[in-house]
């Protein structure tokens, strides 16, 4: 099901949660709403579900305005951040809830409900826990019960609020993959909210980056990561080095040397040069000074655990982080206190804020 969101506004007292947001969700896609807390992403999700009313603007499902459709009639699956499982019901009864509360005319026979719930529990690999209560389950299991419960009513849209927020790192990675498969198998439109950029970039077909109640950028993970719309997106989507430079006659310069820049250089004057750590190129410092167009820095720390090594550098008094392969690190033979040359493969320039 496709969802169109047009100029949706929502305020809570003096706080603007959503300031005129428009978005098209394509049928069958897995969409991430990514942003820091207070960016309005959860509010947007709740408005789509019908749990909150928009002050202005409209949300339509397949072209039909949803204003007069109450939450209970929207047929959306909603997975709450803390799962909101019914604690006095068994896993089975939790999953069966959505089927049992249907109006009499639409309610399946108890036998069919059993069959359907068994099917769902098999799908989320929890058949053996059907008679347990939520308090007897682990976080990952509760999460899957919540998913099965949401899917029981055969929703056209699946909405997930910070679906992995309350889980530990290992479980989180497993569930992420599993959710992706589930989404592909179910032929459903899914939207999930997260503040974890890694999660959004890995899992989603498209990422919607939000901040202060506005949508800043919409695109595939590659698009938003490689061509961030502004400094906020650049900053939010991963580790970044921010260096104070200047733009002088259309050329960005750092300590006098020109910086290779993707896209616009922007206005003349003080500027912030953004470089991702893996775009920092390190080289062996020659004995007779530094080559033209390069900077030199001193190594202040080397973290060599894991597949990628992180090197912290001191570039003329500025902290700079670089990421490089372990092989490259041993080729350069860098250690704390040694000198190396620095260059930037890609950089972006944004005007320095006053």
């Amino acid at each position, binding site marked *: 099901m496709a969802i169109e969101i047009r100029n949706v506004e929502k305020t809570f007292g003096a706080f603007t949660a959503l300031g005129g947001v428009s978005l098209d969700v394509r049928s069958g896609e897995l969409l991430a709403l990514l942003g820091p807390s207070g960016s309005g992403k959860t509010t947007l999700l709740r408005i789509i*579900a*019908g*749990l909150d009313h928009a002050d202005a603007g409209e949300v339509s499902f397949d072209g039909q305005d949803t204003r007069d459709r*109450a*939450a*209970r*009639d*929207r*047929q*959306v*699956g*909603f997975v*709450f951040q*803390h799962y*909101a*499982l*019914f*604690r*006095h019901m068994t896993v089975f009864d939790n999953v069966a*809830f*959505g089927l049992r*509360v*249907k109006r009499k005319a639409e309610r399946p026979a108890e036998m069919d409900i059993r069959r359907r719930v068994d099917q769902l529990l098999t799908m989320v690999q929890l058949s053996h826990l059907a008679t347990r*209560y939520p*308090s007897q389950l682990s976080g990952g299991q509760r999460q899957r019960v919540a998913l099965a*419960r*949401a899917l*029981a*009513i055969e929703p056209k849209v699946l909405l997930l609020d910070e679906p992995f927020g309350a889980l530990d790192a290992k479980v989180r990675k497993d569930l992420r993959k599993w959710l992706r498969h589930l989404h592909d198998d179910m032929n459903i439109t899914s939207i999930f909210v997260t503040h974890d950029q890694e999660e959004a970039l890995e899992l989603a077909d498209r990422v919607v980056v939000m901040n202060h109640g506005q949508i800043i950028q919409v695109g595939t993970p590659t698009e938003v990561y490689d061509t961030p719309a502004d400094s906020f997106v650049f900053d939010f989507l991963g580790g970044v080095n921010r260096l104070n430079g200047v733009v002088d006659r259309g050329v960005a310069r750092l300590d006098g040397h020109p910086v290779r820049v993707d896209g616009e250089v922007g206005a003349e004057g003080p500027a912030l040069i953004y470089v991702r750590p893996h775009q920092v190129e390190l080289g062996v410092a020659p004995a007779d000074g530094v080559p033209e167009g390069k900077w030199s820095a001193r190594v202040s720390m080397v973290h060599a655990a894991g597949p990628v090594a992180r090197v912290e550098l001191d570039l003329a008094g500025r902290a700079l982080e670089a990421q490089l392969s372990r092989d490259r690190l041993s080729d350069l033979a860098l250690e704390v206190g040694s000198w190396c040359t620095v260059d930037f493969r890609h950089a972006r320039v944004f005007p320095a804020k006053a």
Partner: protein
Amino acid sequence: MPADPHSRRPAVGEGPLTRVALIGLAILFLAAFLALPLAAVFSQALAKGVGAFMKGLTDPDALQAVKLTLTVALIAVPLNLVFGVAASWAIAKFQFQGKSLLLALIDLPFSVSPVISGLVYVLLFGLHGSLGPWLRDQGVQIIFAVPGVVLATVFVTFPFVARELIPLMQEQGVEDEEAAIVLGASGWQTFRLVTLPNIRWGLLYGVLLCNARAMGEFGAVSVVSGHIRGKTNTMPLHVEILYNEYNFVAAFAVASLLALLALVTLAAKAALEWRFADQIAAAKR
């Protein structure tokens, strides 16, 4: 290695002497102020033998007092059950103007002296009150009659259920209800299948406390009832009348019945807590 004399003591906490002293003090206090009076009630009631005790209880006026007390509780408790659930539902799950005013109003019966509560009704519905003459013309008597007793009891026991439920419901939040609604449940289904089971233990405590107070209320009821023997006397009032007439055995016999009702209430609560301990623990999670 020689045994360390300190190793038996918990690392954090008081020394054994302090502990014994504190526990002893608590028990002494309980015995002096709770157990002793209770024992006195029963011993006084039985002071002249079982025969006299039974006579005090089976006196027609006493029986009428018991009947009235149970009737009043039977009306006041369900009323306050419904009101308490409705008020706490509104306060805990919704944001609206005047919420703190409603909260303050719920606490009013706790903060006002019961005598004042009774007087309010006399001033409203009494013969010299604002609505009294009109009510008399309609042939309705509230003050010095059973309706007055019921009204005063309802007023005094007003906060018990709500006060028990509001913090519980506020802590539980609205996520469960939202989940139910998104899954297609109607408002009534949500309440019956999700909210009510979540609050049932708090609700039970509230009802038990409300019931205990409804049966035991003295001050407010005393003002509005008029102490008409065999008509508007509840058990606490009857106890007082008998006592003032120096009929100690009968007074304490009725008092012991009242105390017994309280003890049964407590026992019921303890039994339920013991029987459903796991569910109560689960509900708190």
